[in-house]
């Protein structure tokens, strides 16, 4: 009798999960909908509250959106746009809002202290990486930004973490964040990690079939691309183009919080590191 739960099939367990969560219903009239409905005036019929929000999104998207940060993307990074370097920090850190808690403000203040280590420029868009190794792990802040034709910088979404887990060092290569973030230009995916001196280039192979050359600077690497392709392999190269290390994604999920022990780690061949 004690094993009866174990005997239940996956389908029965799935049905039970659906049943358990069926009690949660979407709020009938959201705060967002009410607020915008009042702002734009009353309109009849149930789905029209959605329509009002849609209109707001559409207008914002067509009138105020700058040229896409994605359309000019390149697989090889270019020199950072000085305008972005100068202002990306302000663009990436949102100004405190009235609903921010004390903890929100403290977290933002903490993130504001991180140094800019890479600005990975690809066409008009660039992803900035602010990072610092701390006693409790790697702290980082990443965000996408782009400058419009007038030089005005717009930040388009990113993510941050403190005390982040890192992959074990594979030779001179570690990965500490893999993110897929929303932005006003669409989804982008980014991978960042640290490298030891001697690494001159890092490449990222993707499930989409094409590779990306990462930016390498200040002991870190970063690569990003529009869309949601994921990395299948990250390879570090040294002088003369010698492969020093590879982190393979052999079925392992970079984004998993608690991955199974390292099925994807590929230690470098002795000949690759020794140069034999």
């Amino acid at each position, binding site marked *: *009798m*004690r094993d*009866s*739960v174990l005997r*239940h099939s*996956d389908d*029965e*367990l*799935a*049905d*039970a*999960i659906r*049943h*358990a*969560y*069926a*009690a*949660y*219903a*979407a709020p009938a009239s*959201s*705060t*967002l*909908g009410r607020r915008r409905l009042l702002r734009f005036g009353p309109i009849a*019929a149930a*789905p029209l509250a*959605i*329509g009002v*929000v*849609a209109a*707001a*999104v*559409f207008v914002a998207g067509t009138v105020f959106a700058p040229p896409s940060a994605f359309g000019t993307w390149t697989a090889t990074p270019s020199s950072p746009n000085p305008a972005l370097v100068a202002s990306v920090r302000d663009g990436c850190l*949102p100004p405190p809002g009235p609903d921010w808690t004390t*903890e*929100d403000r403290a977290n*933002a203040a903490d993130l504001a202290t991180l140094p800019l280590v890479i600005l990975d420029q690809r066409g008009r868009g660039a992803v900035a990486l602010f990072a610092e190794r701390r006693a409790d792990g790697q702290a980082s802040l990443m*965000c996408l930004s782009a400058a419009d034709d007038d030089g005005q910088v717009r930040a388009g*979404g*990113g*993510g*941050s973490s403190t005390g982040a887990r890192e992959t074990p060092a594979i030779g001179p290569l570690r990965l500490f964040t893999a993110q*897929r*973030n*929303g932005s006003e230009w*669409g*989804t982008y*995916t980014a991978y960042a990690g640290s490298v030891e001196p001697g690494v001159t280039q890092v490449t990222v192979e993707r*499930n989409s079939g094409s590779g990306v050359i990462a930016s390498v600077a200040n002991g870190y690497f970063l690569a990003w691309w529009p869309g*949601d*392709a*994921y990395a299948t392999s990250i390879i570090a190269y040294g002088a003369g183009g010698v492969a020093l290390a590879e982190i393979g994604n052999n*079925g*392992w*999920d970079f*984004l*998993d*919080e*608690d991955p*199974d022990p390292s099925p994807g780690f590929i230690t470098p061949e002795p000949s690759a590191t020794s140069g034999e």
Partner: protein
Amino acid sequence: MEAMDRTLGAGMESAAPTPAEAKLTADQESFSAFYAGAREPLYRTLLVTTRSPELAEDAVHEAFARAFADWERVSAHPNPTAWLARVAMNQATSWWRRRRRECPDPPDRPARADDRPVDAELVRVVWELPTRQRQVVALRILLDQSTDETGRLLGIAPGTVTAHLHRALGTLRSRLLEAGIEELTNA
């Protein structure tokens, strides 16, 4: 005055809609039907993936707003629900919104007539799964997406989706046993 109202009303009833009006009406009806069917599963999916009722509500609202704004294209998508899920999940993971903290505990579960003893524990155990496992459970089970579609939505291989689901269900079984729950369906 009544006569005038009746005359106006009669005149409006007899006027045939223009093609544009007819299309708008058809689009609204089509969207309304989709909205009615997809809203609740999508909300529950976002609730589980974000662990925040507020984030889930905002993300679902925004996703439907975008779907409405581009309904002609979205309705022609082979899987509009997956499209919506992608938009909602992107919304929920943007830096600006993610700073709001996840709720460590699930919100109070409204009582229902067909409640089972296992329901509350199941909700809690799913809530406490690692992020990726929650995403997979939400997309595969609550939103009824295929393994391939779930993989596409999360940017992981189908085999990885299967592995996450297997681990999640294994954790659920273990946790239910630890809680002394032996049957899923008895009242």
